[in-house]
């Protein structure tokens, strides 16, 4: 087990390094320079040169990359060239914001999706199944920003029961913060429900057909008990793994929702950093999303092995 975790962490580090190299080469294609981005297209060239010098963005990108990597080993993510504040003061609050939203969305959508998927599986091929499968699918296909606007319209503007932005006023209590996050989380619920339900459905169907389910029925267990005790446990495993792969998307991929709800998540940070060519922020933010993604998949695998006693011993065979 520890071996397994250690190996995964090691591989994870390599992946993260590759990730930073990818981003590094990627950012090379962005035109213009940082000072130009900051001062705008109409600023005078001498101002641009002066500012680039001040920011250190006149140095070669390799040097910048090296500086960033060196800083990283000292636990320093560097300084944002656009806002000239420390990268950690930008990235970590954003990460926290993203995490809050993601967690809330997960808390709502995972049980719902699983419930939906299981119901669909139990009524496979019948109306309820169609309703859940096709309904979930339809919800998933509508882009999240459309859901955002629709929900704001209904819940914030017409009914006036929920705020139209996601950022709670400073100093708000826990419940208020949640209140502010309900709408964006709801969008994610709509986007993810179909996906999770689909997985849960497939897993449940598979486990309904398994020999052990047959054993349980033949034992004479009531159908409910069979489903609860014998089917669900095994059917949820693949769903967990799948849900975890969504963590990267939930943390770094919500630009559209974050923009519409004016929420300072890591998606917005990424987007802005890329547009402003804010290399240290971009690198760090991508790295963090990468870490979240890798940790989430690792945790999922661990959870998987906890729930599935077989895995622990077979992990690398």
């Amino acid at each position, binding site marked *: 087990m520890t071996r397994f975790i250690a190996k995964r962490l090691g591989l994870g580090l390599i*992946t993260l390094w*590759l990730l930073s190299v990818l*981003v590094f080469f990627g950012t090379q294609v962005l035109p213009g320079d940082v000072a130009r981005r900051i001062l705008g297209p109409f600023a005078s060239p001498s101002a641009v040169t002066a500012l680039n010098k001040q920011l250190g963005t006149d140095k070669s990108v390799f040097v910048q990359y090296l500086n960033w990597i060196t800083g990283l080993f000292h636990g320093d993510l560097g300084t944002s060239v656009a806002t000239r504040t420390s990268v950690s003061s930008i990235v970590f609050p954003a990460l926290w914001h993203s995490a809050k939203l993601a967690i809330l969305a997960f808390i709502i959508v995972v049980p719902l999706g699983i419930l939906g998927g299981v119901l669909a599986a139990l009524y496979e091929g019948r109306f309820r199944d169609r309703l859940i499968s096709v309904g979930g*699918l339809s919800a998933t*296909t509508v*882009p999240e920003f*459309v859901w955002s606007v629709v929900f704001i319209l209904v819940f914030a503007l017409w009914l006036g029961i929920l705020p139209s932005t996601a950022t709670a006023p400073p100093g708000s209590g826990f419940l208020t913060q949640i209140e502010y996050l309900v709408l964006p989380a709801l969008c994610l619920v709509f986007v993810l429900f179909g996906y999770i339900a689909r997985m849960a459905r497939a897993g449940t169907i598979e486990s309904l057909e398994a020999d052990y389910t047959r054993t349980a029925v033949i034992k004479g267990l009531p159908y409910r008990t069979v489903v609860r005790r014998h089917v669900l446990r095994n059917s949820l495993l693949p769903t967990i793994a799948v849900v975890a792969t969504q963590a990267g998307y939930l943390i770094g991929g919500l630009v559209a929702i974050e923009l519409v709800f004016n929420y300072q998540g890591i998606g917005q940070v990424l987007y802005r950093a890329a547009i402003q060519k804010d290399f240290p922020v971009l690198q760090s933010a991508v790295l963090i999303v990468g870490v979240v993604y890798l940790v989430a998949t690792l945790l999922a695998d661990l959870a998987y092995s906890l729930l599935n006693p077989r895995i622990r011993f077979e992990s690398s065979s």
Partner: protein
Amino acid sequence: MSSFGEPIGSSVTAADSPAVAEPTVGPGPDEAKVIRREHLALLLRSKTFIAGALILGFWIVCAIFGNLIAPDDPLRTNPVAALQAPSSAHLFGTDTLGRDVLSRVLVGARDILIVAPLATLLATAMGTLLGLVTGYFRGFVDDSLGRLIDAILAVPVVIVGLLSMVALGPSTVTVIFVIAVVFTPVIARTVRAAVLSEVQYEYVAAARLRNERAPYILFGEILPNVMGPVLVEFTVRLGYAIFTIATLSFLGFGIQPPAPDWGLQIYQHYGLISGGYWWPVLFPALAIASLVIGVNLLSDGISQAFER
């Protein structure tokens, strides 16, 4: 369920599957044709498949003959007639530039039906290649390519989109490229898993035992057997491609105006919903949803019918 130990990797043998005709009596070679015909019959009996095919068929007709069907020129602007609510003159209303939404939705099928399948096809091709290679050659190749795949998977779509758009310029080709980059690792993973289970089959060992080279084993022997998962993955990804194109449009990296692309239409008008102008968003959104659902129904239908 054969009574003598499970055949490796296939819990359902041909004999148990109701979908495959398995004559225990040796059949003639044209039995293959019969089977194909039975597959077809089975497909045609599947409501899921039929519904999907009808929806997709409708949009394909629109894509091909959209300009003929559309009541108006989807590109002609008339700002003074902007944002008219649906009426008999404009069944779906007009957009901010006074264009007929119905015409744009009908003609818009073309862009998505070219871009999404092309992008998905590219991703499927690359992902299949990667998946075959990483699944077959374990060890170093798998480890290093695997890391790379992981790394690409971890790059947020925004970044891929932005960088590609800047590097390649805003064009349909860029959109195709972005989707391909984003989907390739996902498909590679699925294919790799399929290959891993396929490699356990002894026909692969048998091929090695007659000195076949790796490329033949990969493409000649294994590929035909993983085409099932590849096909399913293709259709599933196709749905997501449509969705992703819309999101890319939202971030400004998508298909370029004045193309009547659905995602672009939604992006251009979503802000107007709060002003009560729902029609330029609703209809393209419905179009996207129906297309994705159609594709998914189709793929469900196919995979049910061909389930081994």
